[in-house]
Structure formats: C-alpha cells, structure tokens
C-alpha cells in the first residue's frame, strides 16, 4: 500500500456518496501516483517499457496499490477507473507533445493514419486524436466518455456501462459509431 492509499480511498468513497468536491482533490492525487507508477515501471523494465506500458496494466496496478479494496465496492472501483482513464489520457498526450514538440510539421512528416504503405502499423497523431476527442465532447458527451475510457483506461464495455450508468449494449452501440466518426475525422484531410 502507498502513502496515499487511505486518502485516495476516502476521497473515492466521498465522491461516490455525492461529494463533488472530492473529485477535484482526487484527480491531481491520481495523476501524480499514475506518473510515479509509470516511471517505476520504466525503471524496472529498462528499454522494453513499450511492451509493459498499456493503460490497462498501469490502471490495474494503480488500483491495487492506491485503493484499499476492503473498503470499497464495485462502484468505487468503476469510478476510480474512470478517473484513471482521463488522467492517463493527459499523461500520454503531454508526453507525446514533449516527445514530438520540435518535430511536428517542418522537415519531419508524420506518417498519416491512412497512408497504406506504412511498414507495420499506421500512425495516429495523438494530438489530432486529442483534438478530435474534444470536438466529440462538445457534440456528444457520452460518446466522448466511452471513447476516452476505451482508449485510456482498459475498462470493458460492461464496466464503462457501470461508470456511466448505461447498459452494456448502449456502450457497444455508441462505441461503434464513435469509432467510425473518429476514423472519419482523422482521415478527413487525406480523402
């Protein structure tokens, strides 16, 4: 258990009981802790971080370390994952910005998602993805939340349904159309 375990668990329970202020204190705590966990993993795994850094892994690791499971129920768990997903998104996009700060545009051409001849996997510009997610948020909040959780928390459709208070079927349906829309959005300029 980490130093913040008690506090994070308390805030999680308080938030679940309707204390919206608890969320505001919870997010920065979770953000710091997730960063630490990611760094620790990086240290442990040497240069093969790529293979262990999956949001699912980090979030699960964070949950087991930061939340006292004896005191919370599945709803708290779902909420924790929800916050963690949002936080991971921030961390990833920040890192991406830093990583590619000096090389976006200019002489270095990002291999675009729709380019067919990429050797392995087509590339996605995460900043573009982030902007598309914001656009989606302004237009359909639920689709946005589902997408964020799918990409950045590793929650299953069922668990996302629990977080958002909708059925698994609804999550599946909305996720499918959100994904299609995102693809359309990210390939728009290359059509």
């Amino acid at each position, binding site marked *: 258990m980490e130093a913040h375990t008690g506090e994070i668990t308390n805030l999680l329970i308080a938030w679940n009981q309707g204390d919206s202020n608890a969320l505001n204190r919870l997010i920065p705590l979770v953000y710091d802790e997730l960063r630490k966990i990611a760094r620790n993993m990086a240290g442990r795994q040497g240069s093969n971080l790529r293979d262990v850094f*999956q949001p699912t892994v980090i979030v699960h690791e964070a949950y087991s370390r930061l939340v006292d499971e004896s005191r919370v129920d599945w709803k708290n768990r779902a909420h924790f994952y929800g916050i963690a997903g949002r936080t991971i998104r921030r961390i990833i996009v920040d890192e*991406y910005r830093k990583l590619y700060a000096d*090389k976006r545009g200019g002489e270095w051409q990002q291999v675009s998602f729709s380019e067919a001849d990429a050797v392995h996997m087509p590339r996605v510009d995460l900043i573009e993805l982030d902007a598309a997610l914001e656009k989606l948020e302004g237009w359909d909040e639920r689709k946005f939340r589902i997408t964020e959780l799918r*990409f950045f928390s590793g929650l299953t459709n069922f668990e996302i349904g629990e977080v958002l208070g909708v059925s698994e079927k609804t999550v599946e349906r909305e996720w499918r159309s959100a994904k*299609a829309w995102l693809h359309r959005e990210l390939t728009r300029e290359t059509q």
Partner: protein
Amino acid sequence: MTERERLAMTIFEQYLDLPPEEQGEFLRLRCGGDAELRREIDLLISSDREANRLSEAVRAEIADVAAGVRVSQSGSSMAMFGAVLNGRYVIESRIGSGGVGVVFRARDQRLHNRQVVVKVLRETKRDDQWLLNKFLQESEALTRLDHPNVVKVLDQGTLADGRPFLVMEFVKGESLEEFLKLGAVRLEPETVVSLVRQICGAVGAVHAAGIIHRDLKTSNLMVKLNPDGTLTAKLIDFGIAKIFEATSGMQTTTPLTVGTLPYMAAELFDGGEASVASDVYALGVIVFELLTGTRPFLARGSSLVAQILEYRNLQERGAGGKLAALRPDLTERLEKALLVALSFRPEDRYRTVREFENAVLSAFQEIEVEAGVNPDDITLGKNETLRISPNVNVERPVAKAGSEGRDRVLPGLLLVVIAVGAILSLTGFPPGFMSGKKTNTVAPPNPSVSPQPVANDAPPFVVTGIPARVTDGKEFRLTVEFKQAGYFYLLSESPKLRPDSLPDYTFLFPGPGDNGGAARFEKANLVIPPTAQPGFFFSGTKGTERIWCVWSPESIPIFETVRTAANGREEGAIRKPDQIQVIQGILSGNRTAATVVRDYRIERP
C-alpha cells in the same frame, strides 16, 4: 461540426441498427437526391469497417509514447531525423518501434533515393563485445541471404553512440495478421498452399543460413498482391534483438507481448533456447491460422504471467481435435501434420521446416483430390476417408476391404459434384445480398458495346437479362447459363465520383453465402439473384454502370483474395486503390488466354 455531418451521423447510427436487408433502401430514402449527404454517410460506413485498425493504431501509439519517454530522456531518437547513415541513408521519418528497436523510414541517396527501412537496435548490451559480434555475424548472414520471401538486408552499420543498425528493403503491403483479419471468409486452398510454400521456404532459407528466426508470427509476415493476381509473402522481422537477451542470461528483458506469446513454444517459457524446433512450432501456429483464422491455443489470463502459464498448460494438453472442430472439411492427415508441429516437446516436432512443409502440402494434395480438382492424381492412402462439409447430408463412402484407393475415390468425387449442385440450389443468395450498395446493377447486353474477345467460338457461359437502361430503385435479375464448368465472377463497376477518381468495384457474385462461398460451377442455369431474393437495383451516383462477367477454368487468385477480404464488409465492395488497379488490370486483358470476360453497360438516367 456542420449540420450535414450531424445529420449524416444520425442517419448512420440508424443505419447500423437496421437488419442488412433494409439498410440499402433506408439510405436511399433518407438521402433522397442529396449526394453530399450520401457521400458523408458512405465515408462513415467505410470508416466503420476500418475503425478497429484505428483502435489498434491508437493503442500502438500510446505504447510508443511510453517507450518514447525513455528515448527522449536519453535524447537519442529525435536526433535521428535528417541524419545520414553510412554516408547515404537519410532518415526521414519514424515508422514505429518493434522488438528490434526503433524503425525509421529513410532514402538511399546513392540509389535513386529509393526508400529503405533502417532499424536501430535499442540500447541493450552494446558494451558487451561478444554480443555485438554475435549480432554482426547474424546480420551479415542475413545480408548474404537472398530469398524472394525474405526481406533483403541491404546494409548495416553502427551509430556514433555505438548502437548497431540494419538497412533493409522497404516492403509494401499489409501484415499477414491484418490480412487474415480482413478475410471474413476462409482462404481458398490454393491460397493456403501458396502461402505455406512461401513462408516455409523463407524460414527454411533462414535456417539454412544458420539463423534461428526466434520471432515468427503473422505480424512479422507481409503479404502483397501482385499485378498478376498472385500473393507474395515476405518475412520482415527477425528476432535478432533477442540474441542479446537470450545470451545475456542475467537480465531477462525479453520483450514479451501478448502478441508474441501465442507463437512461443513451451520450452521457451521454461527458459529454453530458441531452435529450429521452436520456429517449427511457430509455423504450426501460423498455418493453423491460415486454415481457421484463429489460433490453436487461446489464453484468457489478464496478466502476462497468467497467460504464460496458461499457454504452457494448453500446449502440454495438446491441440488434438481443434482443427477438425473448426474445419471438418479438412483431413485427419492435415490435422496430424499440424499436431506434430505443435507438439509440446521440441523433439516430437518435425526436425526441419521442409519436413513440416512436405507434410502439410501432401495432406493438401489429398484434399484437392477429394474436392475433385485433379482426379488423375489420386494419392489417397488406405486409411483415408472422404470428408464432406457437414451441412451436406451425404453418406461417407465406406471403404471395402481390399478395394484400391482409386476405386474408393471415384464415388466420392461424384458425391462432391452432387454436393456442389445441392449447395448451389439450396443456398441461393442471402437476404440483403444487394442492399446497401452504392451503385450497382445489371441489364441485357447493350448492342452498342461489343463484348470482349472470346477465347473460343462456343462461349462457356451466356448471360441474359441485363437491361440497357434502368431507373434507380427498379429491380432486375440476370440469368447465367453455364456451358462449361469453371469459376464465375460477377463484378459491377460504379460510375466515378469524379473523372479522375478510381471506380469502385463490387463483387456481386459470389457473395459469402452464395454457392457455399465458392466461385466454382458445374454446368447449370443460374438466376442472380434467385427469385426468392430481392433483385438488384441502383441508387447513388448516376451515370454508366458496367457489369463484368468473368469466367475462367481456374480460380483467379486475386479475385479470391479480394472478394473474400471484401465479403462481409459492405457486401463485397472493393475500395483499396492497389486492389482496384489489379482488378482493372485483369479486366483490361492481363489474364490467362482461357479466361473469358464479358462487359455490359447500363445507363442510369
């Protein structure tokens, strides 16, 4: 977001909720004459098909960023852009990172600026001279290796900071992993045989050069469509980096990923060395995937460790019966070949890739015989039995004591012929066969258009019922009379959106449920679509619609590949530019002399 985009999204969501047979009509009604709206929705529909690739790409990118956290701290990766290696390779962009290290795209200034791939090893044990030598030895062996199905290593070198790099041929195409995902319908036997030959040939050549691949998996094989319609597979990635880990002993930083585990033989989990036997195991998994689209063992554990234990246990228990359950149409002999390759103990597997390849290919020869492809070439053994698809209620021929293989096969052949006919008349076309299509149609031969030259005087098929002119929404059918057995394909070519754009092609026949998904026909008359189904109709872009009827005594591999990949995704529409070009090539004459093509035009006022 514009109003039109919002509306398109709303209609798209309603479209997804509808049964397939109602989707086409629904879109027609909702869009009316609004071509822009229709185009936006069509783009959403095609995006829907591609969306899983997007998810994967996002996941990969997130993982790359995570790796990049390290890279940017050491400040080495970004400095690569614009760098010139060995005085000729200019680094242009980063493609991604794999097991080996970071992969860049570059241009060779000395050779007409051709594209190459540069792989820079991750920082591992580069201060260890022995390991570095080992790496250089292996990469040298790869440089000497010249095999059509192995990516060429063109050059090698060392960065200023001591990291070794390889320069490799740039391979276009898609990974076998993606290729298999696209194929909703199983691969034709010819395609499987060809891929097995190429892949085993490649791995065999690698072994002959004294190299163990160590990382065979579908994502390390590229597949490319050739202009003549065949497929070329290429082995692109070697587990060279793993030499470092395998031999360094102390630190096990083996890049285990969920994607790698299914191809790892049990002994590797126990700390054993990679060997020919472990490569043979991986080939067993790959061939199993070619045949079934899935893997012999599927672990469900949520953590890497749990999955490793699970895979080890599953392998120990064995894959017996799995192929038969998924592909009851294949023989026991083929299953046996796979089981030997997938054996838990390395000493129980084939000793060489060639042995494995021979076992698989000879088992396949037997299947071809059973399917009636080549009756003169019967090689059935005494204990072999004929297998027929389970949905056809035909008794298995029972071997009589003392009868010869040939005697037993002939009734089998007859039964297969009957079965093909039965499938044809029973299945017909699935509901919604034509629905949802943007632009398709057919009509009686247009007298103003002369058909393509025909190979002989008696055409192998006659098509009637194609209208010269048809208004949108009006249904029609065509009749095909086959004079000779062969393979038959029916394609529509839509009017172009713009004069300079590529046309869309759609396979009208065979669809996934037509004729059991196969293009082969005996002599018969065929109404397309069958009268029990809705007829063809047009909607969307107006103009001249072309209908191509293609008959060939042999199956056309490119058509098989493209149609099986396209079926199940918007009912057979082809949109990939390289595939469209290959189809255009065949239709415009790049085909065998025996192939007969008829071309009809339908005006859509």
